[in-house]
C-alpha cells in the first residue's frame, strides 16, 4: 500500500500533464462542418467561407479563410484567420492562439482571447505587467496582514510537499477546465452562466491565495533567516509580510524575462492552486469528513 502511495503522485502528475495537453490540442478529434440552423461549426480542420453565412461561425484547431460575408460572429481558436475581398464579418471576430490577416475595415470588432495579445507594443506589455505586479504586491500585503498564519502554513506545505502540491495544482486546473466545459452545456438553460461564474470566482480566489503562498515560500527560500542570530540582526527583512514582498519582487522580476517569465509564472500558479487546495486555504481542515459507523 505504501509503495503504491509513493508512485501515485508522480503517476498522477504525468497523467494530469497528458490530459492537459490533450485538452489544449485535441487535433486528433477532427470532424466535419456541423450546422445548427444557420450557424456553422468546424473542428480540427481548415475551413473556407465561400458562401454567405447568416449566423455565427466557429472554427476550432483549424485555419479559416473568409471570402464571403458572415452575418454574425466569427470565433476561431487554435488557428489563423485570413479575410479576403469580398469577405466580411458583420459581428465580432474573437480569436485565440493564432493570427488575423486582412481584418482592417472588414470586421465589426476584433477581440483576442489572450489578454495581453491585444497590447502589441512590447513597452506597453511591460507597463501592463508592472501594473499587475503592483496590484499583486498590494493584494499580497493585505491578505498576509489579515491571514499571516494561513499563508505561512501554506508556504511551509509547498516546501515540505512540493510534488504533491504541483500534482494537485495540475489536476485541479484540468478539473476546472473540464467542469467549465460541462457547465457550458447548461448555458442554454440559464443555470450554466451562474455556475460558470461561481467556478470562475472560485478559481480566481484559489489562484490569488495560492500565489501569495508561493510568494511567501520563494521569499523565505531566498531571504529567510536561517538562524536566530540572523533574525535578531535584521531590522526589516523578517516576518511574513517581508517574505511575501521579497517573493513578489523576485517572481515579478522573473516575469519580465521574455518566454521564461510567463512559463515560471505559470508554474508558480500551478503550485499556488495546488497548495491552496491541499491546505484548504491554510485552514488545515479536511475537505471531506470520513464516515464511520457509530459504536454500539
Amino acid at each position, binding site marked *: 500500500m505504501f509503495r503504491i502511495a509513493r508512485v501515485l503522485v508522480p503517476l498522477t502528475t504525468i497523467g494530469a500533464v497528458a490530459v492537459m495537453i490533450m485538452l489544449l490540442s485535441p487535433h486528433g478529434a477532427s470532424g466535419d462542418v456541423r450546422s445548427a440552423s444557420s450557424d456553422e461549426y468546424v473542428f480540427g480542420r481548415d475551413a473556407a467561407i465561400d458562401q454567405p453565412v447568416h449566423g455565427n461561425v466557429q472554427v476550432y484547431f483549424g485555419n479559416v479563410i473568409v471570402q464571403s460575408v458572415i452575418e454574425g*460572429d466569427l470565433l476561431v481558436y487554435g488557428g489563423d484567420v485570413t479575410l479576403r475581398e469580398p469577405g466580411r464579418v458583420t459581428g465580432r471576430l474573437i480569436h485565440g492562439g493564432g493570427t488575423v490577416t486582412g481584418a482592417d475595415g472588414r470586421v465589426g470588432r476584433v477581440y483576442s482571447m489572450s489578454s495581453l495579445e491585444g497590447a502589441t507594443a512590447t513597452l506597453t506589455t511591460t507597463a*501592463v505587467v508592472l501594473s499587475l505586479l503592483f496590484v499583486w504586491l498590494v493584494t499580497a500585503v493585505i491578505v498576509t496582514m489579515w491571514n499571516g498564519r494561513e499563508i505561512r502554513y501554506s508556504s511551509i506545505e509547498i516546501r515540505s510537499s512540493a510534488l504533491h502540491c504541483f500534482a494537485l495544482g495540475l489536476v485541479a486546473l484540468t478539473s476546472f477546465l473540464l467542469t467549465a*466545459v*460541462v457547465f457550458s*452545456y447548461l448555458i442554454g438553460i440559464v443555470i450554466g452562466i451562474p455556475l460558470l461564474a461561481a467556478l470562475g470566482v472560485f478559481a480566481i480566489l484559489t489562484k490569488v491565495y495560492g500565489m501569495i503562498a508561493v510568494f511567501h515560500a520563494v521569499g523565505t527560500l531566498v531571504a529567510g533567516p536561517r538562524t536566530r542570530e540572523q*533574525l535578531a540582526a535584521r531590522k526589516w527583512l523578517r*516576518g511574513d509580510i*517581508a517574505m511575501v*514582498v521579497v517573493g513578489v519582487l523576485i517572481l515579478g522580476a522573473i516575469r519580465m524575462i521574455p518566454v521564461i517569465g510567463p512559463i515560471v509564472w505559470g508554474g508558480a500558479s500551478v503550485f499556488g492552486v495546488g497548495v491552496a487546495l491541499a491546505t484548504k486555504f491554510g485552514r488545515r481542515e479536511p475537505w471531506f469528513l470520513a464516515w464511520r459507523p457509530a459504536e454500539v
Partner: protein
Amino acid sequence: MKSECQRYLEDPEANASHPDTCVECAFFAEIGADDAPRRPIVIESLPLAPWEEAKHRPWPLILGGALAVLAIAAAVFAAAGATPMQVLRRVFPNFDLILSTVRLLGEGVEHAPAGLQIALAISFVLVNTVFYLLLRRAPKGIDV
C-alpha cells in the same frame, strides 16, 4: 541538583538503585522523562521556528517595494505614450464580450464531434476522481 542524582543522570545503568532512595528521580524514571525537567534549555541552540517574529511588519520595505514598482510602471507608461486606463481598456475585455465568448464556446461544445464529447465525459469523471483522491490526503507541513 544532588551529586547522587547527577551521577544517576550521567550513567543510569551503573546507578540503577538510586531511584529507590530518591523520590524525585523515581518519579521522572517512572514517567520516562529522567532528565527532561532538569536539563537547562538553551533557546539559541533550538532550530528557528517559522512563527518567530512572523508578525513583524516592516513598513519601510513594504512601501519602498510598492513605490518602486509603481514608479517603474509609471515611467514605462510614460515612455510608451499611453495612459494606464487606455491600455487597461484595450487589454481587458468587457463583460459583454466575455458573455458572448462563453455563449459561443457553449454552442461550440454542444456541436463538437461525438468522439470528442465522449472523451470529455470520460476525462471529466477520471480527472475529478483523481482530484477527490488527492484532496483526501492530509497536509504535511508543521507550524506549531
